[in-house]
């Protein structure tokens, strides 16, 4: 699997898009989606919520387990992907595209976000 070069990545397996007007899109990586198995339920943060980098902001439930969804950056949620709430399998079928999870107006970001190459190495190790 390949991780898109233009994105940045957290060690909790979220991806973060480039920002436009301070807003970035967040999802989980294909690596994480594969590890979860079929995602059947997504509890996403709501518009207006404030999320904190590295802290849980939702849940992704798969056939066998439930996993916390972590915020890769600190900021205010400005959109949640209703398509994923309606059809959680989008997280598996298009993790970097239609399966995005939320958009966040960034107030602060940790200094350990990874480049695509660094993330690829991280998941290989």
């Amino acid at each position, binding site marked *: 699997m390949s991780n898109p070069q233009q994105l940045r990545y957290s060690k909790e397996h979220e991806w973060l898009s480039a920002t436009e007007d301070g807003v970035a899109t967040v999802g989980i990586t294909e690596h994480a989606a*594969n590890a979860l*198995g*079929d995602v*059947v*339920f997504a509890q996403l943060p709501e518009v207006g919520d404030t999320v904190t980098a590295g802290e849980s902001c939702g849940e992704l*439930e798969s*056939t*066998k387990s*439930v996993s916390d969804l972590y915020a890769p950056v600190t900021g205010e949620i400005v959109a949640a992907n209703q398509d994923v709430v309606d059809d959680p*399998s989008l997280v*598996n079928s298009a993790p970097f595209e239609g399966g995005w999870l939320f958009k966040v107006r960034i107030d602060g970001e940790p200094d350990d976000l990874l480049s695509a190459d660094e993330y690829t190495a991280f998941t290989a190790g």
Partner: protein
Amino acid sequence: MSTAPRLTALDAVHRALGATMTDFAGWDMPLRYASERDEHNAVRTKAGLFDLSHMGEITVSGPEAVDFLNFALVGNIGSIGVGRARYTMIVAEDGGILDDLIVYRLGEPDAPEYMVVANASNAQNVLNELSNRAEEFDVEVRDDREAYALLAVQGPESPGILKSLTDADLDGLKYYAGLPGTVAGVAALIARTGYTGEDGFELFVSPGDAEKLWGALMEAGTPVGMVPAGLSCRDTLRLEAGMPLYGHELTAGLTPFDAGLGRVVKFEKTSHSDSFLGRAALAAAAERAETAPPRKLVGLIAEGRRVPRAGFPVVADGKVIGEVTSGAPSPTLGKPIAMAYVDAEHATPGTEGVGVDIRGTHEPYEVVALPFYKRQK
């Protein structure tokens, strides 16, 4: 202590298929090949091919094989016909379930031979128990775990797939029966058993023949929609079919009567003696079950989308009334389902106000009779 997982004879096949592997009872087993939901649906509508080589085969033979098995197990083994199979259990002296088993009667009347198939996680314990219990009997208890690979073809297309590869009389092979035969040129014990709620076959073969048989089955089955299927979908299939799993619905802390499976206990047996290990405790458990009904195993269907997991409390009116033993999203029903032991007064299908505590939130559930899914015959 070495903890390297054991590999089945099909390990290279699974890796070539890109399976996600998981440690299961000390074995490295395929969890899923791609999407477990697709594999589940293929078994329900077409067919799935499973590697179940982790199951534990123990062969019991000798002149006193029937008397021995009647003593060692709770069922009436003497009433199993040649070529038939029976679901039974082995219990401890206190009546607690040590494992649930399938016993196949293989030998002719003058040469009794039975194959006992134990769950992978309990196989060593069952082998030890049987060996200890055999002391007073003229029998041989043989560890045959290395002697067999086990492949299962499950689903409505499975009879057609197998018929194209064998001359064995599959139409004459009833559910819970087994016969020796040849499949794709490979010697096999062909059993019409399974753990999916579908029609299907389990094929016990020599490990050296496993890859050849897998290849032949895939070649025959792929055109009709058969796919390799892993342990993840096996669990959701058996859950929909309401079948118990050791360690979840069945434990050493429960007698067969507590598990709602008292019918597998036969106090009268076709052998010289009706005594068997655990009898006194089970007789007491049977009486208790009559006078003070234990918690009952029921089905729960979610109204919402959150999934109940094993160990989650079942609640009513803010009180804990039971515990989930298995839970998963059901691909067939499209909703989360669970099996749970609940207090008898809340066990009637349709009982109002029952919920599951899912990480602090009480989610509403409908109480239903098991199974969730029954195939149309």
